[in-house]
C-alpha cells in the first residue's frame, strides 16, 4: 500500500473551514480531519431543512470514465443500465458481486456518450476503482481518470439552494438542471461539474471543481449566509430521507431487492456482474425487507440495537438515531415480510429498556419540492 494509506489526507477545503468554539473535526474513511459539526448538529440540520446548508464532500470518490466504450464498461459494472441515460443526466446505481451482494452504491452521470462521472463512497472508492479497472477488456476504448485528489466537491442543499447557487453560477445553468441532471461549465476559467443531487431529502446541488475554485466557491457561499454543515447533520438528514448508508444499511451481505433498491436493477438488458444471482433472487422474492421504524415515545434507537417481537429478537437496527424534524427517534431494520407491514408494532432494546416503535412508510421526510 502506498503512502496515502498511512498518512491521513486532508481535503482541498480543509483550510477554509470556519473553525469555531464548538467545531469538532474527526478522522473519517481515511481522511484525517473531517467536520463532525461546525456549530451544532441540530442547528445545521435545521438550516438545511429551512434555508440552505453546505457540506465538504470532497472525501467522496470521483472517477471519470471516458472513451467510446465507456458505456459498455459501465453496463458491465453497474446494476442500472447506463444506456438508458440521456446526455447530461444521472442515476443512482449499484456495484454488485457475482453473488448479488452490494459492493457499493454510486451515482453515475452521463455528460455525453463518451464521458461519464462516477461518484462513490469515500470508504469504497479505491476498491470500486479497482473493480472498474478489472472489468476493462482489451478491445475496449476506455480510460479511467480518478480526479478525487485534484478536485474539491461541495454539496449545497436546502430550499434556498437553487436561488443562492443561481446568483453565483447563473440561473440558466442551475435552474435549468432537471432532477439528477448534470452539466460541465466554466468557473473562473476552469472546467467544473454540477449535478442536481444530494443526500438530504432536499433539493440541492453537488459541484466538483479545482482546489482554488472550490475554496473560492465555499467562501462565496459562506458570505451569502449558507450554513456549513458536518457529517453529523449529513447523517441525520439522510436518515430522515431514508437513504441507505453503505456499511450500515447495505453491504456485501445484503441484496438490492431486500434493500428496496429493485428500481436500480435492470435485468432485462445486457449482462452485468451479478446478473445471474440477481435474476434468481428476484424470482424467489425478498426474504426480508428494509423498513422504516419510528419510536412512539422518548428514547433513541441506535445502530446495532436489537429489534424484538413477541419476546424474540427478530432483527437489528441498521441505522438509528434522532430525527430533529419529527422530534422522535427513527431507524431502519431488515424484517421478515410478515413483520414489514406499515403499522406493525415492535420493540427496540435500548440498554435494557424496551422502546416501542412502529413500522412506517418510506421515507420519514421528503422536501415538498421533491414529492411526486
Amino acid at each position, binding site marked *: 500500500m502506498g503512502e496515502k494509506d498511512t498518512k491521513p489526507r486532508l481535503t482541498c477545503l480543509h483550510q477554509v473551514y470556519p473553525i469555531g468554539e464548538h467545531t469538532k473535526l474527526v478522522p473519517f474513511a481515511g481522511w484525517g480531519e473531517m467536520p463532525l459539526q461546525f456549530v451544532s448538529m*441540530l442547528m445545521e440540520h435545521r438550516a438545511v431543512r429551512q434555508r440552505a446548508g453546505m457540506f465538504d464532500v470532497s472525501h467522496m470518490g470521483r472517477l471519470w470514465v471516458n472513451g467510446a466504450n465507456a458505456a459498455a464498461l459501465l453496463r458491465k459494472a453497474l446494476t442500472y443500465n447506463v444506456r438508458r441515460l440521456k446526455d447530461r443526466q444521472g442515476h443512482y446505481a449499484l456495484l454488485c458481486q457475482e453473488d448479488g451482494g452490494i459492493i457499493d452504491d454510486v451515482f453515475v452521470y452521463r455528460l455525453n456518450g463518451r464521458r461519464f462521472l462516477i461518484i462513490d463512497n469515500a470508504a469504497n472508492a479505491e476498491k470500486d476503482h479497482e473493480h472498474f479497472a478489472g472489468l476493462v477488456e482489451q478491445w475496449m476504448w476506455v480510460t479511467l481518470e480518478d480526479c478525487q485528489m485534484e478536485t474539491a466537491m461541495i454539496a449545497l442543499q436546502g430550499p434556498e439552494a437553487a436561488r443562492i447557487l443561481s446568483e453565483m453560477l447563473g440561473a440558466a445553468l442551475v435552474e435549468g438542471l432537471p432532477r439528477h441532471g448534470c452539466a460541465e461549465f466554466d468557473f473562473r476559467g476552469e472546467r467544473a461539474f454540477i449535478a442536481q443531487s444530494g443526500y438530504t431529502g432536499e433539493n440541492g446541488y453537488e459541484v466538483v471543481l479545482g482546489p482554488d475554485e472550490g475554496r473560492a466557491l465555499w467562501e462565496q457561499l459562506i458570505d451569502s449566509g449558507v450554513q456549513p454543515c458536518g457529517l453529523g447533520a449529513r447523517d441525520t438528514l439522510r436518515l430522515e430521507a431514508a437513504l441507505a448508508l453503505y456499511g450500515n444499511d447495505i453491504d456485501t451481505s445484503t441484496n438490492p431487492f431486500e434493500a428496496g433498491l429493485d428500481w436500480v436493477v435492470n435485468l432485462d438488458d445486457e449482462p452485468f456482474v451479478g446478473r445471474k444471482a440477481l435474476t434468481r433472487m428476484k424470482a424467489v422474492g425478498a426474504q426480508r425487507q428494509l423498513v422504516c421504524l419510528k419510536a412512539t415515545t422518548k428514547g433513541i434507537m441506535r445502530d446495532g440495537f436489537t429489534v424484538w417481537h413477541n419476546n424474540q429478537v427478530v432483527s437489528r437496527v441498521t441505522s438509528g438515531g434522532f430525527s430533529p424534524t419529527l422530534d422522535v427517534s427513527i431507524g431502519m431494520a431488515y424484517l421478515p415480510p410478515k413483520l414489514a407491514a406499515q403499522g406493525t408494532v415492535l420493540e427496540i432494546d435500548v440498554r435494557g429498556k424496551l422502546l416501542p416503535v412502529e413500522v412506517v412508510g418510506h421515507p420519514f421526510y421528503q422536501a415538498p419540492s421533491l414529492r411526486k
Partner: protein
Amino acid sequence: MGESLSDRRYTREHEWVSVNGDTATVGITHFAQELLGDLVYFDLPDLGTMVRQFAKIGEVESVKAVSDIFSPVSGEVIEINPIVAESAEVVNHDPYDKGWLLKVKLTNPVELNNLLSAAEYNTLIAESEKH
C-alpha cells in the same frame, strides 16, 4: 464561558451540585454538554426517589451519544426541572443555571467533602483534554 463555577462542587463524572440549606441542585457541567453535543432527552428519576451518592440516577441522550448521570449527593428527589423535561437543549445553552436537572433534599451533607472543588475539577478536565 466554559468556566467551572466556584460556588458549587463537582463529580469526576461531570455533574455539579450547588447547596442551599438542606437542598442540593444538581446538573451536568459545561464540559459534559460540550462533549455530548446536541442534547435530546434526559431520563431522570421520579419525584420522591431516594438517590445515593455516586449511584446512577438517569441517562442523557444526545444526537450522537448517550451517557449515564450519577448523583453527586444522597437524598430524596424533590423537584425536576420542567424546562429540561420539555426541551433538553436548554442544558447546552445554560448548563449551570436554567439547565439544572433536579433538586435533592440532603440526607448526609458530610458527603459534600467527597466532591471536587472547581479548581480540582478544572484540573481533571484539563488532563482529560490532553488525551
